[in-house]
């Protein structure tokens, strides 16, 4: 049973207003369902459920009501939305979608969210000190935070992270406890070809077979692009919220060519695409700079959408990478990402080329388009002239 402090008990009963009562109801419900025995303080909440495509009318109405008299209690950042408001008029997006998306954006901002609209908070914000508890609802960000950034979070849902933002608390369960962070399964990376696409598929495989934490052996180091791809793949297919690069004493299974081919066959549904999309997770400055370098003297043969956070786009513009990518025919988009954007419409697009395993999953299941999976180097080689 969850043990509440007197203060928490009073808030749950409604003595501090209906909004806090609601937030504590969510924390208590999730705490009871995950066998927590108390709530603990968190310093940072990162929210999902920003895109109108994911939360719909009910979400929009709920947030609009909630924002009337509520402020977030801790630092709160937010996931991408459907598009950026600066350029959406160019894309023929449905008016109703734009109105509802604006309302959702306004509600979060009114409650005090930092308008980051990014799925890579770990790359664009200064990180709190080692071991700090945060509440990240974006799956790739939760896995990255636990595995790379030395932070502690569960793979939060939209509501647990929202309740954390309103109260500064979270149930002490699962990956918040040290004993749950020890993996009891090792996946041995046995594929020679080590690019970000391979790591994305490794992550997708790991997510399917692992519990809450997994060890990965056979990998000495991971560059940032491959690491983000691994986190995103893992977050898409299951509930695993953390990996370590090591061996464990427990069971070991191989991720070999055969397993990789199975994942590839599941996610790759066409041999060609009408457009290229890069950026789920959104690209950071390192990846933008590397892309600009790879595109020297080349031009894309088809439309290429490149998704990054707004702040990264501004830096890329300042440093000249944006104009390099645009000269090669790429478009830099911000505040949104591949996943569930209305900017990719199956009435106009049959197939999409991407290096993102997470993007591939959502393009197929939500946007309803076919996907051609290729690594970034293969995309530059085959899709430019």
């Amino acid at each position: 049973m969850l043990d509440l402090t007197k203060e928490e008990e009073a808030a749950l009963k409604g003595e501090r207003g209906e909004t806090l009562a609601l937030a504590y109801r969510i924390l208590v419900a999730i705490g009871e369902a995950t066998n927590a025995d108390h709530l603990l303080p968190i310093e940072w909440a990162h929210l999902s459920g920003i895109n109108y495509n994911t939360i719909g009318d009910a979400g929009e109405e709920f947030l609009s009501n909630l924002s009337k008299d509520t402020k977030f209690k801790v630092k709160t950042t937010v996931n991408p939305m459907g598009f950026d408001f600066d350029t959406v008029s160019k894309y023929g997006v449905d008016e109703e979608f734009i109105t509802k998306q604006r309302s959702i954006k306004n509600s979060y901002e009114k409650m005090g969210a930092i308008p980051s609209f990014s799925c890579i908070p770990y790359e664009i914000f200064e990180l709190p000190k080692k071991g700090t508890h945060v509440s990240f609802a974006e799956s790739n960000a939760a896995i990255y935070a636990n595995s790379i950034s030395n932070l502690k979070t569960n793979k939060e849902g939209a509501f647990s992270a929202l309740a954390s933002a309103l109260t500064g608390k979270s149930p002490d369960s699962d990956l918040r406890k040290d004993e749950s962070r020890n993996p009891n399964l090792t996946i041995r990376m046995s594929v020679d070809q080590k690019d970000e696409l391979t790591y994305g598929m490794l992550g997708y495989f790991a997510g399917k077979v692992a519990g809450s934490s997994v060890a990965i052996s056979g990998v000495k180091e991971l560059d940032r692009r491959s690491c983000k791809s691994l986190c995103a793949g893992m977050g898409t297919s299951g509930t695993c919220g953390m990996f370590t690069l090591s061996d464990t004493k427990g069971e070991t299974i191989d991720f070999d060519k055969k397993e990789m081919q199975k994942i590839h066959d599941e996610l790759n549904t066409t041999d060609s695409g009408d457009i290229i999309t890069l950026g789920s997770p959104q690209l950071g400055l390192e990846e933008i700079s590397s892309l600009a370098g790879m595109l020297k003297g080349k031009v894309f043969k088809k439309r290429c959408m490149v998704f990054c956070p707004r702040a990264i786009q501004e830096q890329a513009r300042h440093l000249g990478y944006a104009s390099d990518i645009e000269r090669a025919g790429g478009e830099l988009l911000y505040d949104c990402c591949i996943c569930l954007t209305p900017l990719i419409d199956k009435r106009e697009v049959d197939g999409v080329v991407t290096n993102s395993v997470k993007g591939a999953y959502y393009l197929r299941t939500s946007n309803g388009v076919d996907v051609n999976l290729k690594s970034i180097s293969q995309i530059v080689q085959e899709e430019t002239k």
Partner: protein
Amino acid sequence: MTLKIIVKGKAEGEVLVAKKPINFLGAVDKKTGKIRDKNHDLFGKSLAGKILVFPFGVGSSVGAYTIYSLKSNKCAPHAMICLKADLTTASGCALANIPLVMASKEDYNSIKDGKKISLDAETGKIL
């Protein structure tokens, strides 16, 4: 009877037992409270005013907003009893302030469809 309380409260109503798990986002019409998934054993039945007894919720976590909408549209169940409290159902009932308890397998199986019961999810009792 051993009930684990997930969302506190008290409720009365007629028991509606679902054999299959419920995908709130996909299978429930939030305007009427009716199950609209033809493959579900409760297809065509309304959850409104019932004590909904079901194994657990499945599908997108956004389904929690559907539970909230059911309550706003006055067609939500009065309470829910499940075998396993998944996070979508737990968050949804918390949002909508609908009492939710988890029952042990034995107790769960003893709850009969159509019976009028009173659930006390403050002390964890069914009368």
